């Protein structure tokens, strides 16, 4: 056994418990951008799954200023905080988040039609 320990490089231990950061590769790390229909031709964009470290209110403020729309941060009992914006801002939001370096492009999932 001791031989094995010396010979096998231990840079990567496959049996170690997965770290919290690594395990997010599944569904947790994704930022979901959805759109919802309202009455008439109005719609609503929701941004869910941003990292907790970010100040949602500051992001929201910039989003509102950038896209000239209103919005709020909603507290959801299961999903935590969710940003809501008026209008279909899916493209805008994703480009904004990528450009600001908040999320990587691979981790953004755009839902809706």
């Amino acid at each position: 056994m001791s031989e094995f320990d010396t010979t096998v490089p231990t840079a990567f231990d496959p049996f170690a418990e997965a770290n919290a950061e690594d395990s997010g590769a599944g569904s947790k790390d994704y930022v979901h951008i959805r759109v919802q229909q309202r009455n008439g031709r109005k719609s609503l964009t929701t941004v869910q799954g941003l990292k907790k470290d970010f100040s949602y209110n500051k992001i929201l403020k910039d989003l509102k200023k950038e896209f000239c729309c209103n919005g709020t941060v909603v507290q959801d009992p299961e999903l935590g905080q969710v940003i809501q914006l008026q209008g279909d801002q899916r493209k805008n939001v994703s480009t904004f988040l990528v450009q600001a370096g908040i999320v990587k492009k691979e981790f953004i999932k755009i839902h809706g039609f």
Partner: protein
Amino acid sequence: MQTGLVGECSWKKLMNMADDKQNDVKDEVAELAPFDPSKKKKKKKPVVQEDIDDSAENLAEKVETLSVSEGLESTFTGLKKKKKKPAEASLLNEESVEVGGEDLDDPAAESEEGEGIVLQQRYPWEGSDRDYEYEELLGRVFNILRENNPELAGDRRRTVMRPPQVLREGTKKTVFVNFMDLCKTMHRNADHVQAFLLAELGTSGSLDGQQRLVVKGRFAPKNFEGILRRYVNEYVICLGCKSPDTILSKENRLFFLRCEKCGSGRSVAPIKAGFVARVGRRNAGT
């Protein structure tokens, strides 16, 4: 060189396998080849004679050495020739042009012709005696294979899904008419597809009496199509072989996708509705 030879050998084998027809055609062309230059010469003859009248060569010899004299002429009467070129090229079909290019009797004429003809050649190595490259031969074999027996060429048949038919029910509801058909073509449980559609659209909906999907909200067929496309990518297509012959099964609360073609399996994410904002009127009490 070695690789070139090997390539040629395998190429020939493949050619034999792939097409007999094409070979026959080639042989015919090769047999026809001697006629083509004569045709060309007839056309050019007036020019030839004009020039050669002065030099007064005897005709019998001229027929023998016509090609050489042509070559000389082409250098002299280059302008005339160039004018004539396009018409000639268009008259002769591709094969004969190819043969003409191989006609090495008059190198000068050939070099001139080369410029005009290169565009019309089917294969890049035609008209030059360089070695074939592997990629070119491979492409050629696949072209031939595709022409003669397409089922061997490895072209996977594209599974065609009919576009979704969508009706408006009133002003606020949309009916997805051929929902069941599409589920059947994908071999997927209608409940699963419905859950995905509704989660993506962020609305509610249900199946009606005629097995149509009624969705709340106004949606265009294009919207459904995009979502179905995403569904197919995520829950139907096998990542390994891209075939849609897959089975979605549930094993202790996890969804697994199993390919019927290549036998590979993968797990797929469960459908989650995510956050749905509250839209519409609030209750009077709160």
